[in-house]
């Protein structure tokens, strides 16, 4: 069997077909690549944990006496005459530095009212003759549920602001014709025995779009709004 070379014309035609088939293949691969975009896949975003719902909570961190009554909760803490005797007011005891000694029965109370702890006498606010009420500086009796007015008897400007809705938070409707609004009581935010609001954990800071945490160190001008 001897090899007979095809005529030169046929040879050229075959060559052309192979070249053209190769080109088709190349174009198809290119088209597929353009659709799949293997070189430009979006960078996977770092997961961001959802914020703790505690940070979305609107309930104030303390409950006032009025709240407890409204919620029909346990009021046994306010039944003073279970332990104390009527007509026999509890004596106040002081240590060598003239600071009040809080008896063990009231160990949950930490005194810290006023700068240098100056407002440290129980009967500055509680009524000595009737422990179920408060007494204002001018000698009026006030119910437990009316505690904000007691605070106002000393803190006049803040009380005025509070009445105008400017000190402390309001909830509900700014437009009083359209719905109810609720003004918080002083003791919803301030512990009357130590009124300074305690520090708290802040909610998480904003997460950067950048990939690596090292890049997140703030640039000097990063925070300018």
């Amino acid at each position, binding site marked *: 069997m001897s090899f007979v070379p095809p005529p030169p014309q046929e040879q*050229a*035609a075959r060559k052309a077909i192979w070249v053209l088939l190769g080109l088709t293949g190349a174009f198809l691969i290119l088209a597929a690549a353009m659709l799949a975009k293997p070189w430009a896949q979006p960078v996977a975003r770092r997961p961001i944990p959802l914020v703790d719902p505690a*940070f979305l909570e609107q309930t104030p961190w303390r409950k006032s006496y009025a709240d407890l009554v409204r919620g029909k909760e346990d009021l046994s803490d306010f039944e003073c005459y279970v332990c104390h005797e009527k007509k026999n007011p509890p004596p106040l005891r002081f240590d060598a530095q003239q600071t009040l000694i809080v008896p063990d029965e009231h160990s949950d109370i930490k005194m810290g009212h006023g700068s240098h702890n100056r407002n440290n006498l129980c009967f500055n606010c509680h009524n000595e003759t009737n422990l179920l009420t408060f007494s204002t500086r001018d000698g009026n009796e006030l119910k437990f549920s009316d505690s904000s007015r007691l605070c106002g008897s000393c803190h006049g400007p803040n009380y005025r602001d509070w009445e105008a809705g*400017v000190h402390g938070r*309001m909830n509900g409707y700014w437009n009083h014709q359209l*719905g109810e609004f609720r003004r918080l009581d002083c003791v919803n935010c301030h512990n009357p025995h130590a009124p300074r609001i305690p520090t*708290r954990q802040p909610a998480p800071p904003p997460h950067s779009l950048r990939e690596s945490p090292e890049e997140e160190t703030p640039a000097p001008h990063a*925070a300018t709004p």
Partner: protein
Amino acid sequence: MPLPEDSSAAEPGSLERLMSRRNFLRSSAAFAGLGALAASLSPLRELGEFSSVDEFMQKYYKEMTPEDMARVIKRIEGDVQRQYGIRPHVRDLKPMDGVEFVYCLNLTRCIGCRKCVHACVAENNQSRNPEIQYIRVLRLPHGSMDLEKAEHNYNPAAVPEKGYFYMPVQCQQCHNPPCVKVCPVHATWQEKDGITVIDYDWCIGCRYCEAACPYWARRFNFTKPEIPKERLNPNMAYLGNRPRKQGVMEKCHFCIQRTRAGRYPACLEVCPVGARKFGNILDPDSEVSYILREKRVFIQLKEEMGTNPRFFYYFEK
């Protein structure tokens, strides 16, 4: 190279004829061209379920009749339900007569706890990843109002920290808003009650407004917003917190879905120290009127820009 012309001419209908170089190049070029076209259109696939013919044909907000709006709201409700499985309550709330909103923020009281930031995100259906937040809380050292010294990534164990005060910044709802002036398609405008709003269906995403705003109050949706179904707020407004799509701007709108129904904004209702105050400045008995009358209202932020914000920062006496 000799061309195979002769053979194709000699044998009509042969393989060489069908696969002549010219035909072949033509068809493969057409093929590649189609492929390239499909590839160039492929970003449309990522736009997702939100684009529809109805949306494309929708009229400009101010030209819509109530019937048009009812139809649009129905479409939005359907879209949201399809996407999140929750039937929302979308409203188009109009500004009230005799009402101009003003916000006051007490810098003495703010403790920088960022609860407002996250309450806002929850109320206004902002994207959780990438994060979009309308409020940025700045921490500034005492004795300075220099924003160059501000820090917003602070994350101590407890706030407030000694030696610092905190200044939350959000849309200032300017009387003279630069963002509105630069919008080439009038997709953002100032309403009668002072709120600068955005029509998310009209926004083209050019981000001019973001560049124009001196307070960095505007945010851009680079991706489709990611909102977990269980955290979607179904109380929505057309100009407010309805879910946005990829490629549009958004910003604080004083919780339009709440405030135009008479309620306080979400950031205010969550503030643990009552530093945020909101109300109608045209009502002399409102809290904000009282503050502007009685308090040391210290600044409108970047007063020198001439934007005349409706957002006031004040200090206690």
